[in-house]
């Protein structure tokens, strides 16, 4: 195996594109190194992206926030403006692993690892986050939900790497939240995860919403029916029930030791209701 630590994105892309055999971009390495040790991958080349200028920064721009692909999740929790604008995204990122893992893991890595149970991804999908992808043919910007295509698989082409994740500037009266179910109190993989982001009109009615579910399908699901169920409402009991029903109906979960199909479907609805409640409160409090 070769290890490279390029200083520019162009060099990183060239290295990844030109290597014969298997080449992996590494941000925090908290998934990649575990996969390497488990013998699941045998890279010929690992390209460490942490020395690339700008990739370790969170930038606040006129359009919102740009989170570099090498920003450790712990740094998102320390970014006050980001936390104020997107508390649900930051909470989701903060749920990944222990303090030790937080110092290394990144949301770009969480996304590209393409686990259906990734904690930050439902929150990012609910937030309508975008992903800047750099590759041999230049840059492109895609929706976050278009990156994972199945467990462990992404839509990125050879030589392409995620450069940054973009979050829009928040309109007035907006809030987001992410909740997950785990059987323990900490340090576990989501059995179900639910992210909700919404914006209210001046009368406190939900003007727009996005609802995303994790760990209930091969990829994180954007559930448009669930969003439709609450748009135009003040999140009354009937709207919440419709939201839960739409979420449960959208699930296509597996049965495994961590949760049965029935359990995951039901919990998806319950978590979506609770996350919507938190997002609604946050939107109203602004």
């Amino acid at each position: 195996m070769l290890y490279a630590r390029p200083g520019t994105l162009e060099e990183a892309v060239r290295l990844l594109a030109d290597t014969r055999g298997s080449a992996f971009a590494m941000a925090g390495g908290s998934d990649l190194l575990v996969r390497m040790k488990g013998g699941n991958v045998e890279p010929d080349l690992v390209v460490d992206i942490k020395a690339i200028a700008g990739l370790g920064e969170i930038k606040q721009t006129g359009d919102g926030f740009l989170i570099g692909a090498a920003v450790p999740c712990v740094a998102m929790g320390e970014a006050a403006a980001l936390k104020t604008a997107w508390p649900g995204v930051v909470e989701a990122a903060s749920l990944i692993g222990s303090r030790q893992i937080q110092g290394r893991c990144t949301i770009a890595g969480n996304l590209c690892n393409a686990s259906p149970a990734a904690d930050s991804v439902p929150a990012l999908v609910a937030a309508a986050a975008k992903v800047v992808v750099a590759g041999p043919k230049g840059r492109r910007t895609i929706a976050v939900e278009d990156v994972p295509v199945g467990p462990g698989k992404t839509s990125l082409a050879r030589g392409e790497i995620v450069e940054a994740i973009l979050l829009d500037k928040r309109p007035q009266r907006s809030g987001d939240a992410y909740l997950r179910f785990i059987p323990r109190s900490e340090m576990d993989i989501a059995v179900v995860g639910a992210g909700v982001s919404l914006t209210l009109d001046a009368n406190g009615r939900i003007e727009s919403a996005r609802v995303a579910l994790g760990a209930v399908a091969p990829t994180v699901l954007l559930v448009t029916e669930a969003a439709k169920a609450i748009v135009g409402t003040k999140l009354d009991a009937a709207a919440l029930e419709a939201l839960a029903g739409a979420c449960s109906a959208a699930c296509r979960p597996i049965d495994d030791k961590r949760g049965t199909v029935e359990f995951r479907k039901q919990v998806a609805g319950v978590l979506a209701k609770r996350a919507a409640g938190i997002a609604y409160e946050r939107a109203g409090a602004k």
Partner: protein
Amino acid sequence: MSGIAVSTTINGDAVEFLCQAEETLLDVLRDRLGLTGAKEGCGTGDCGACSVIVDGRLVCACLVLGAEAEGSSIETIEGMADGDKLHPLQEKFLEHAALQCGVCTPGFLMAAKDLLTRNPDPTEEEIRFGLAGNLCRCTGYDKIVRAVQDAARVMKGA
């Protein structure tokens, strides 16, 4: 022997080493530099026995490549005491018998040190969540939590 040349600072001392690309920082610390305080428990970032602080961030040394340490500043358990004078956390772990077999202890001490640096006055809940990345199969955690609480009191100068 060929390898990647890495220059780093460990516990305040300039250290240079050669390592292979696959080698983790934990392998380098233990097998090349003789710093065997950090332990390999799981090797997958679950147990925290290899906790060290790299550039101010608590990490599992088993999930860092040795080559990544280039230019970084690393704190390990070997740098915790000031000569013969133990760190308050070390004192309190002894006093409260917050260890039995001791394999997890260096990791707990580094994680507790990092926790108290960021939060000098943590609640019991904050301590338990803050140390959730460190597993102990002997103590049941209670004595560890008491030791960290007591150390926090001492370090605040109470």
